[in-house]
């Protein structure tokens, strides 16, 4: 069982290492080149402000979801740790008797 645990750890750590390597490659190589210019067709001009709204909503929705999700996750973990701590302390007390 413990053998599988180490393999999974190595896999995740390897993937993280690969990801970091790719970011390093990209940032150094792409930085050496000039950024591209965007081509804006004429038809976009009169409705310029409208496409912004979905992006705005997505951005704020993400912030809310991320913050609430993190708070909820913390709450769960705190509850779990407190429960386990109570259990283990109970076992310790009964073992000492």
């Amino acid at each position, binding site marked *: 069982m413990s053998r599988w645990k*180490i393999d999974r*750890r190595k896999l995740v*750590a390897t993937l993280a*290492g690969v990801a970091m390597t790719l970011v*390093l*490659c990209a*940032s*150094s*190589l792409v930085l050496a080149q000039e950024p591209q210019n965007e081509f804006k067709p004429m038809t976009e001009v009169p409705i310029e402000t409208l496409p912004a709204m979905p992006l705005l909503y997505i951005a704020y929705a993400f912030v809310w979801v991320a913050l609430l999700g993190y708070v909820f996750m913390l709450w769960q973990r705190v509850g779990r740790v407190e429960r386990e701590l109570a259990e283990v302390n109970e076992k310790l007390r009964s073992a000492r008797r």
Partner: protein
Amino acid sequence: MRVLRAAWLIARKDLVVEARSRELAYTTLFFAVSCVLVFAFAFVREGRAIEDAAAGILWVTLAFSGTLALGRAFERERQADTLRALLLAPTERAAVYLGKLLGLLVLMLAVEAIIVPIVGLLFAAPIGRAPLLLGALVVTGTIGFAAVGTMFAAMLVRAHSRDVLLPMLLYPIAVPVIIAGVRGTAAIFAQEPNLEAAQAWLSMLVFFDAVFVTLALWTFGPVMSE
């Protein structure tokens, strides 16, 4: 100063060991050349390199071969368990760090002395345009990379998954070095060279080196004393 003398003794030990087998030197050099080759296939279009690819290829090659050298150098220490012996020796921890750093620097600079002309040759990059400035960029960049790398490689000697953790920790922190190195080198190699920009990037590299070598000297002792 006693610390510097101790550091020199440690570095000399590493260099003598390396000079006998030349294992690290040959493998790192060959790896660096292979890197350049692989990147060449990625960034050469219709027989000519994409503009500014030379600078990027040079620095990524330095980073990758540097990481390899770091890993191997400390693996050698780990196998013989000599790192613990070094730390138990009656020298300051800073001396151990400086000694390992010096040894690695000599190795990496030797490899770079060969790689830079190769890159110049293969990608028609004008390495002779501002040789002192280019040399200064390469040297300060290598010092910055090796300073952080030596620190982390020593730290990770006894950790799990150390082969993968070293690049994972080292690359993000070494990114300012890579950015400054690539931008500075690209400024020199560009069709219209901008030597003032290259000098500005050089000064940032010097600042980075000063900050991070100092930081490494401060933290090496507390981290290694477990």
